[in-house]
């Protein structure tokens, strides 16, 4: 399998506006139903252990919108510094914060304030004080060079038109020997240029 960095004519600001509107709805009106799966059924489909899901607040679970389970590639270790790109309502962030424990910490980044509010609420509900929820973009990660042990991300990089910039940012902030564990989507058939330039297909 090959990861292709697509060239697209989509307008970045317009795409960001559409994505923010969509994920504001996923945060605030999760019951309305979307073109993709969400919540508890999605978590089961992606093999998150039921006990781990049940330990999260319902308001976190209901807005889960990932595309895989990054922890299937390995658990995080106590004391690690983690950054979750596009944390959404905090489904993975809260689990990561528990895994790294009080000596570790998680920077939870998202461009949608309504999602970040849910992440903060989830952290408060579980009494987790090692989470720093920050508003921002995947293309400008809020961490110093070589300061992060593990970058996680779930269902986000496919939404960014400039994937190379995101990957360079990820590389910049990870410590030597540190790792990147993500879940995302890939397309396995060629996508024609019209589809690449169709903003509605990007924002889902």
């Amino acid at each position: 399998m090959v990861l292709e960095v697509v060239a697209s004519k989509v307008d970045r600001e317009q795409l960001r506006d559409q994505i923010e509107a969509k994920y504001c709805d996923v945060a605030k009106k999760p019951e309305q139903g979307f073109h993709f799966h969400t919540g508890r059924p999605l978590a089961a489909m992606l093999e998150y252990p039921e006990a781990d899901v049940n330990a999260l607040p319902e308001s976190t679970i209901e807005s889960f919108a990932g595309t895989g389970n990054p922890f299937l590639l390995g658990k995080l270790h106590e004391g690690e510094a983690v950054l979750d790109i596009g944390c959404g309502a905090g489904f993975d962030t809260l689990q990561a914060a528990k895994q790294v424990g009080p000596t570790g910490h998680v920077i939870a980044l998202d461009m949608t304030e309504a999602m970040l509010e849910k992440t903060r609420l989830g952290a408060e509900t579980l009494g987790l004080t090692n989470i720093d929820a920050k508003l921002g973009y995947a293309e400008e990660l809020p961490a110093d060079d070589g300061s992060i042990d593990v970058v996680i991300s779930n269902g986000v990089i496919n939404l960014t038109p400039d994937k190379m910039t995101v990957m360079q940012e990820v590389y910049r902030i990870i410590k030597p020997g540190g790792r990147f564990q993500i879940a995302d989507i890939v397309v396995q058939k060629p996508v024609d240029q019209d589809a690449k330039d169709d903003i509605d297909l990007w924002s889902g």
Partner: protein
Amino acid sequence: MSHANFTGLRWGKQVDVFSGSKHESDAKEFDTRGVTLAATKG
């Protein structure tokens, strides 16, 4: 990923993540899959 100088790329298993969703037909058209992957900064 290799463009950004990561090494030891590992793919996890693939999931037909849009199956049964309203996106199913678009996803089928391009054979879209949910994947997991990991890599290390050497």
